[in-house]
């Protein structure tokens, strides 16, 4: 059903041929802000304003067309050698302008004021928003595919990622009951994700029950009392490195009031790569499977 609607939208919005176009078929693509883009040729000079967009562009084989990325774009490692145009909330107008990009791809988190100013300067800015479910990353990939004339590659990537997600789902059918999980965002403190974050869906897809999943918010600072009362059976720590993870784990272990919490008694404290899991990009699928394997090793045992 979802695929059908997608195809319909693609037909309605993505492929409106311009009348009187000479030879090549120009495209009009609509971004998540509702702006439509007449794209008369494949963009060759792309600037990415967000790490997840950079990851998607590289996985569509567009590494060569990327001119500029943010200082947070560190994956894949080729991204590190690209020109840095500033950060996510403070991209440099000058640097972007100096690259003369034919397409800038922005993402939720880039301030709209900055994007408006870029548009004033005559730059085409294609803006996408974050979904609340892991699967919505497929639409994000397809949209980027359409605007960069790589729809076929995008479709292949989405098919492969979709298959990966179904494989995980299939394996989890043999799994035991879903554990109550606390997702620790910073490795210290009780910051976690609520119902509105795609990380909540990631937990769900990986066969976990988010103990903060009932809160209709994106990010939450949970109190120690409700943490103890919810009694999570496992803790998943998002950390950039093994050392950060160990530091985060020690924080939980050294808190005397947490001693009786199930996860600390059983020692079920797991590491999930922060960059891979917190960026709305293709690596979410692998992270879902990785977490499912950590939480339900029994379900994956007899996999070939």
């Amino acid at each position, binding site marked *: 059903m979802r695929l059908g609607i997608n195809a319909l939208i693609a037909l309605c919005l993505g492929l409106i041929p311009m009348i009187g176009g000479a030879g090549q078929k120009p495209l009009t693509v609509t971004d998540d802000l509702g702006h439509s883009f007449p794209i008369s040729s494949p963009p060759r000079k792309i600037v990415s304003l967000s790490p997840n967009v950079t990851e998607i562009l590289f996985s569509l084989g567009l590494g060569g067309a990327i001119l500029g990325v943010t*200082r947070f774009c560190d994956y894949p490692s080729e991204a590190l050698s690209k020109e*840095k145009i*500033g*950060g*996510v*909330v*403070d991209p*440099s*107008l*000058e*640097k972007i*302008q*100096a690259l003369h990009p034919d397409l800038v791809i922005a993402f939720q*988190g880039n*301030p*709209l*004021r*900055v994007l*408006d*100013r870029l548009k*004033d*300067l*005559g730059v085409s800015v294609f803006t996408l928003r974050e979904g609340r479910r892991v699967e919505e990353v497929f639409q994000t990939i397809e949209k980027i595919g359409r605007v960069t004339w790589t729809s076929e590659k995008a479709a292949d990537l989405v098919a492969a990622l979709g298959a990966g997600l179904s494989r995980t789902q299939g394996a989890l059918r043999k799994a035991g009951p879903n554990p109550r999980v606390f997702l620790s965002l910073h490795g210290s403190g009780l910051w976690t994700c609520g119902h509105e974050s795609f990380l909540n869906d990631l937990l769900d897809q990986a066969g976990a029950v988010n103990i903060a999943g009932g809160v209709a918010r*994106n*990010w939450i600072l949970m109190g120690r009392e409700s943490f103890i009362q919810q009694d999570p059976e496992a803790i998943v720590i998002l950390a950039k490195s093994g050392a950060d993870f160990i530091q985060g784990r020690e924080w939980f272990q050294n808190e005397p009031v947490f001693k009786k919490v199930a996860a600390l008694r059983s020692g079920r404290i797991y590491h999930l790569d922060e960059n891979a899991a917190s960026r709305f990009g293709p690596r979410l699928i692998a992270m879902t499977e990785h977490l499912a394997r950590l939480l339900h090793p029994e379900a994956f045992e007899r996999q070939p």
Partner: protein
Amino acid sequence: MSLKSKRGFLLLGLAGLFAAGFLLSMVSGQVRTSPAAFVDFLLGNDQSLRTIFWEIRLPRAILAFLIGACLSLAGAILQGYFQNPMADPFVVGVSSGASLGAVLCLVLGLQASLAGFSTQSLFAFLSGYGIVLLVYALSLKKGFFKVETLLLTGVAAGALASSLTSFFLFLRTDSYEQAVFWLLGSFQLASWKQAGAVAPYLFICLAISQWLAKDMNLLSLGDETAQSLGCPVPRVRKIFLATATLLAAVSVSVSGVIGFVGLVVPHWIRILIGPDHRFLFAFSTLTGGVFLVFCDLIARTILSSAELPIGIITAAVGAPFFIYLLHRKKG
């Protein structure tokens, strides 16, 4: 040295710094551009960097100048108004009010633009002005008010607005990074449109201040003496308060809260050329503008990979210089 020649020297110095500041602003930035490329652009030979010079750097330097001028003039007015050297453009709660408006806008997700102004700017302006009206109304007793009550009510209302701002930021942590940039001020998005929007306010407010400068001099003798010397004290006070608030609210709504400029620049001028408001207003305006052009220059070039919020620079540069002047004056 007579006051008159001091003023002459100061004016000459400011003109030189003004020219230097603008030239440096044009040739430096995150993108490396040689002075030769700038000359080429001026001569019309090479227009490839036109957007950077003409649409990004020049309006940015002009906006920095205008905002610095607005804030310093507002500070000079309010220090005279309250007879208090600690007064700054934000003393009666304008900045906290305006930040509250801007953050509220972020939190509610109202990000659009109306007639060239972003809704954030409009919210900031209205809430900044609104809070001062509220403070003013609360300070009135039987149609009169004590300056002291106004000052204290302003501080209290400002604290309340700040706590509400933090509360909204806490509710919506994903707006936090954006809000910080707003709260510490930046000229990152400066455009001709913004500069054009600010300029008329500055000119009108400067004209009003110059027109009433003699009355401000009389106010420093005390309200009763001023009244007996023919100064219509209540009316003059109302006009000055409205003018300073307008300047501060416009500034905050365009570029966020930029501290220290409005506090320190009028003091520099008072130390250099004395307390006569007929010159204090004009010189504070000019100096504040030039000062902020240099601060912005530092803010956007000191790190190669990122821009600093300008509020960090204004205090870091302004405070030592201020202490030096104070020290020299004593010695």
